[in-house]
Every structure is written in C-alpha cells, then in structure tokens.
C-alpha cells in the first residue's frame, strides 16, 4: 500500500465525516423546501391537464361555470395586466429615475423612500378597499376593469420602483458622467444612456410585478365579476380575472367539478410562471442600434 504522502490523520477524517453530515442535512433541508412546490405543481398538472383544451381556454362558460370555458377570465386577466402595466410602468420608472438620478439626499427623498417601502407592506385586501373607495366610488369609475387595473397598478408600484431604482443605480457612474461631460442635460443622459443600460433590470422588475398582479384576487374583490351574461370585456365593463375566478367559483358555485378549478389554476400558474421566466431570463442588453 502506497504511503499517503500528506498523511490522513484521525482529525482530518473526523472533520470530513462532519462535513459529509452537514452537507447531508443541508441537502435534506433544500429537498424539504422543494417538495411542497413539486407536489403542488404535480397535483395541479395531474388534475387540471385533462380539462384543458381549446374550448376550456377560449370559450365562455355555460351552466353557471359548470361547463364551457374560462376564455373571458383569461382575456380579463390579460386586460387587467395591460392596464396595470400602463399605470405602473410610467409612474414606477419615473419615480425610480427621480430617486436614482435627480433627487438629492434629504428629508423629501427619505420620505418618498419610506412611503414606497410602506406601500410594499400594505396587504392586498387593503389595496382592494382603497382602490374601490378611490377609483370606483370617489372617481366614479364604478366596478370596472379600469378601476381594477388602476388598483393593481398601484399594488405593484413599489416592486417596479425598487427594481427600476436598483437597475438605474447599478449603471456605472462613468456612463452618466460621460453623457453629462459631452454636454447632455440630465434628462438627455437619462433617456439615451441610463435607461437603455438599466432596461434589463427594469424589465425583470416589471415582469415580477405583473406576475404578482396576475395572482392577486383580493385587490379586485370588490370590482370583479364571476361571469358575464352578454358580450363585453373592455375597460368600462366589470372585470373577470383568473385569480378572482378561482376564489369565487370555489366558494359560490355548488356542484362545480373540481377539475375545472384545477384547470383554471393551471392556466393561472402557467401565466405567472411565464412572467417569472421572463423576469429571470430576459438577458441581453435591450438597447436599440440606430442606423446613421
């Protein structure tokens, strides 16, 4: 037997054994965390998959949701998300630009940051009440998709602001200085140099925010409807949404085949996970190349 040139002392063996034990525990913990997620996905897939099909995805419901499809709720979700995007993107990126690029440190800036942090901590149902009383009642929008989209837009605003501010602050100082040293105004530097450089980060934040908005029922609880008798589906109609559909169909429709709920849940999950993938993947600088 060859002599181990560096020697394997009992102390070393003991340390290696402890390390192996430690790794085993960590692996176990990681596995335990993953298990519920895998189980949940498996269950939703197993029970939801059979009902999926063109009719389920696209057609309107029949027999008080017990047959037909969830098409209006899918479209309604997309409409709400688009509306929320229209609210949160300009407001959020604007606020982030102000905080990262224009604001001088001081009480005003600190106050804005506290307010943004506070918004992030407000429970979704409170947004629901607030949105209803402000947009539906005080502003007279009523129980409409417009009011719902505004509420969801405000709900995700902190996520968008935080992500965009981080992305903007992450742009190396030299780029901003280079633009300013060439005689750019702050706005010109922001628009042509900082924003394009921060775009991947902003895009991730927005996708995450939309994923969250897609999954929330509480903020639109007081506006959404479970189904629509006639045509409709614009910003001025009562919104239908997958998340609200799941909540209401499960609690208010006796005798609803549970597979239909799982089908809707599967569609919602796919939508949310698609947005998440967009947030995490994204990749690549998004700056446009202009031709001379």
């Amino acid at each position, binding site marked *: 037997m060859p002599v181990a040139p560096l020697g394997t002392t009992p102390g070393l063996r003991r340390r290696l054994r402890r390390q192996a034990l430690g790794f085993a525990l960590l692996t176990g913990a990681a596995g335990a965390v993953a298990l519920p997620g895998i189980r949940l996905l498996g269950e939703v897939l197993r029970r939801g998959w059979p009902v999926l099909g063109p009719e389920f995805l696209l057609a309107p419901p029949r027999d008080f949701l017990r047959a037909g499809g969830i098409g209006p709720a899918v479209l309604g979700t997309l409409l709400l998300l688009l509306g929320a995007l229209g609210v949160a993107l300009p407001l959020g990126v604007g606020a982030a630009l102000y905080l990262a690029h224009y604001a*001088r*440190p001081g009480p005003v800036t600190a106050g804005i940051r506290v307010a943004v942090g506070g918004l992030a901590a407000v429970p979704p149902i409170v947004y629901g009440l607030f949105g209803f009383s402000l947009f539906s009642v005080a502003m007279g929008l009523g129980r409409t998709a417009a009011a719902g989209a505004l509420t969801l837009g405000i709900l995700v605003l902190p996520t968008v602001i935080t992500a965009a501010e981080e992305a903007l602050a992450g742009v*190396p100082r*030299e*780029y*901003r*200085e*280079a*633009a*300013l*040293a*060439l*005689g*750019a*105004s702050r706005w*010109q530097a922001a628009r*042509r*140099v900082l924003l*394009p*450089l921060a775009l991947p980060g902003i895009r991730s934040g927005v996708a995450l925010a939309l994923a969250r908005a897609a999954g929330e029922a509480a903020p639109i609880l007081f506006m959404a409807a479970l189904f629509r008798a006639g045509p409709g589906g614009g910003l001025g109609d009562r919104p239908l949404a997958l998340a609200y559909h799941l909540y209401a169909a499960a609690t208010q429709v006796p005798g609803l085949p549970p597979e239909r709920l799982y089908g809707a849940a599967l569609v919602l999950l796919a939508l949310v996970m698609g947005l998440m993938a967009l947030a995490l993947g994204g990749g690549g*600088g998004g*700056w446009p*190349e*202009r*031709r*001379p």
Partner: protein
Amino acid sequence: MSENKFEVKDLHLYYGSFHALKGITMAIPARRVVAFIGPSGCGKSTFLRTLNRMNDLIPGVRVQGQVLLDGRDIYAPDVDVVALRQRVGMVFQRPNPFPMSIFDNVAYGPRLLGVRDRNALRRIVGECLEAVGLWDEVRSRLDASALGLSGGQQQRLCIARCLAVEPEVILMDEPTSALDPVATAKIEDLILRLKERYTIVIVTHSMQQAARISDYTGFFLNGELVEFGPTGTLFTNPRDQRTEDYITGRFG
C-alpha cells in the same frame, strides 16, 4: 508668451467637512499638455473635475475661489454648465463608450447640439475617428456595437466622441491606467498630435507618462499644489523637497 486657457485663483474645495483642495493657484497655457501627478487621494482628479464642474454632481461639494476660462469665471452664477462642458471635454479612466453603435457614440454629442443632417454627422464621425486613428479599424463596422471593441480602441473612441463636440480643452483622468502598454503608446501619440489644436490636461499615475507627453507638470500632495512648472525642470531640478522625494520614489 503663450495665452492662458485656464487661470485658477486660490481654489478651495470641500467634500462636506473634508478640505480636499487647499488654495490651488495656477495658469494652464493653451495648446499645451499639462500633467498632474501625485499619490492616490492627493486631489489631482478632484482638481481636474473642477475644470468642467463635474464635481457639481457630487452631493455636499463646496467650491471657493475662481476658475477662469478665457478670463470668465466658470463658477459665476450665470454660467451654463452644459455649454461649459461642450467647451471643456473629458475622457475618463475606464473606457466608457455608450451601449450604442460606434457611429452613434461619436454622433452623440453633435446630436445633442442639434446636428440632424446625416451627411454632416457622417463627416463629423469620419473626421473624429480619423483624428484618433480608429477610422481604418472600424470604417467597415460603424453600425456595430462599440462594446465589441478592445479596451484601447474603446478609449480612442471615447476621445473621438469627445472631439466631436469640438471642445477647446480635453480633460483626461488617467486615460491609460486600464490599458496595456501598446494601447497606452497609441493614446500617448494621439495626445501629442492633439495638442496642436487642443489644450490637454491629464491626470496620471505614471511619472514616466507625465515626463513623456507633458509640457508642464503639477505635483499634488494632500490637496495642495506643491509645485508646478515646465516638465523638464520639475523632474530634473525640483524646487521643493517633497517633489524630489516623490519623483525619486521615496514615497507614494
């Protein structure tokens, strides 16, 4: 006697309570290369950045004293900082081309100034890339991303970008410290050619570089301008003991 581009009179700068520049007085002659040397943190970069008011961007900075550009105080309240920065360009330590095409990088400044005509932009871009010796290397790929260039090419592109707004002065903040020796030599050659038309103020960590390219050298230490004079004199016959200690490698 040569005219002075900048005259600086008793300039003090504070970062909050930190006294970063202590009574700098000097004259920077036009169409010469002026180098600043000194150990890290001595204030040479800070001083350079007072010449185009780049320190304005840093919260808590206060400036006292005068910086005259062609006899006008650039810290006077009615001075347009944007116009000042078009006259006094800047090249930074790390090459920082914008994430745009090579063409758009050089055209960035002229477009800010309102040049829209394509032929005019093409002419400016061509001339500026020619002036920095980059034209032959990039003429076939002006639409390609500037980020695909090598570090030395990127830095020359940044100089071209700076030339495109037709400045009178070019400030360079350790422009070769991120480059290899070959790329550094190209930048130094370029600086010597540029001084026929531009006043160049360069901060450098390398005393050899200052000796190779500058006409005048200033030695900074702890926020003071210890000595300023013709480069040959400063390196061979310094008046101040601290300058001699620094250039002979006794500290720093």
